[in-house]
């Protein structure tokens, strides 16, 4: 979806302001939200693609004005309710009103945290040979889907060169739409800055993206 999250190439938000000696978290609740997100993530009740899309679906005014970890918190709450892990009336009441669904919960301690904190691999068996090889010229498609996609607007409809092949991966556009893995080849595609930004862009500079095969056609 062409949402406000797709920010590459926008302007008007001022300079980048690195904070000297920035603490990892500015407030203890931020670390709590991160830890809770990961603790809930153990159940694999949703995937990273679903979780990214849930943030993209937030109202633009909310997305632009609320702190990063608050968006994570609201995302968790929305998905917990959507997946029936908690109910909206329980969030409202602040207490459990009915028993929890049976969750696939394994042993969980610091000793076996590695088993449960790792995200599932995105690699999938290839469904066929890769359509492109390193060095090929490719053109990204000009599309504007209503669903989640990982092809940023600034990189659509442009000619680039395949720089790397990364194997076959679960396809975020499909996964976040609830249509399954639909695995596709993943490439690094490199563009000249002037191809993306026009004649005023810096000569010689390059920008690369990671592009799934359905985003590409022959250049």
């Amino acid at each position: 979806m062409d949402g406000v999250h797709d920010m590459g190439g926008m302007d008007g938000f001022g300079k980048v302001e690195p904070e000297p000696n920035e603490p990892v978290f500015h407030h203890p609740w931020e670390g709590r939200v991160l830890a809770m997100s990961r603790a809930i993530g153990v159940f694999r009740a949703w995937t990273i693609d679903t979780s990214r899309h849930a943030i993209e679906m937030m109202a633009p005014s909310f997305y632009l004005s609320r702190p990063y970890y608050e968006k994570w918190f609201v995302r968790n709450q929305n998905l917990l309710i959507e997946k029936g892990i908690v109910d909206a009336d329980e969030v409202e009441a602040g207490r459990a009103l009915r028993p929890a669904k049976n969750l696939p919960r394994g042993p969980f301690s610091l000793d076996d945290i590695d088993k449960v904190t790792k995200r599932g691999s995105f690699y999938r068996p290839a469904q066929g040979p890769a359509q492109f090889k390193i060095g090929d010229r490719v053109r990204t498609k000009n599309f504007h889907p209503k669903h989640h996609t990982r092809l940023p607007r600034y990189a659509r409809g442009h000619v680039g060169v395949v720089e790397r092949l990364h194997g076959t991966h679960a396809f975020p556009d499909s996964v976040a739409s609830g249509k399954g893995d639909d695995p596709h080849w993943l490439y690094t595609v490199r563009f000249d800055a002037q191809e993306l930004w026009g004649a005023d862009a810096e000569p010689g500079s390059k920008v690369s993206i990671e592009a799934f095969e359905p985003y590409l056609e022959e250049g």
Partner: protein
Amino acid sequence: MSDDHGHDHPKHELSYYAKRIYAMRDLLIEKGVISEKDIQCQIEYQEARTPANGARLVAKAWVDPAFKARFIADPKAACQEIGIDATAINEFVVLENTPQVRHMVVCTLCSCYPRPILGRPPDWYKSFNYRQRSVSDPRGVMREFGLELPDEVEVRVHDSTADIRYIVMPMRPAGTEGWSEDDLAKLVTRDSMIGVMDALPSLPE
């Protein structure tokens, strides 16, 4: 807390977040979805992952050409070799800076970041202005960090749009011949491994 203009300020907004977050935590614990111990485990796991991991890798690559070759060819195996857990990353790519080519990493769509190697991303990395301008004006962004690149240097921006994770290997500063890996690692800042800065030229105070 009252102040000198005669009324009480409302409680700081943060307590509002904290209240909602702890209420959700209590609900999830009451329902048996997670436990307080789960949360503590996750906090400990997170705290063990810091930019010191990346700095160790880069410093070792600076002093050991064979390790550098392995680090570039198979970064996850190189991590394992020196006891750094990068298994949570699907695919890990090392981008080597040279006098001719400089790399810079961004995630314009969200906040993808090599967390097992660099820890949590700093706020500026997640900021809208960085996500917006790093792809269209990378040199301008680097300038805001205090890095002025010569015109002839080629800038390469890598937008993390899938689940490949990148680390930039900054150039080894001049005059550090014979330094220990430990001292060299102190020169390798988080920002130099995202690519917006050089490694420090000398040991920090």
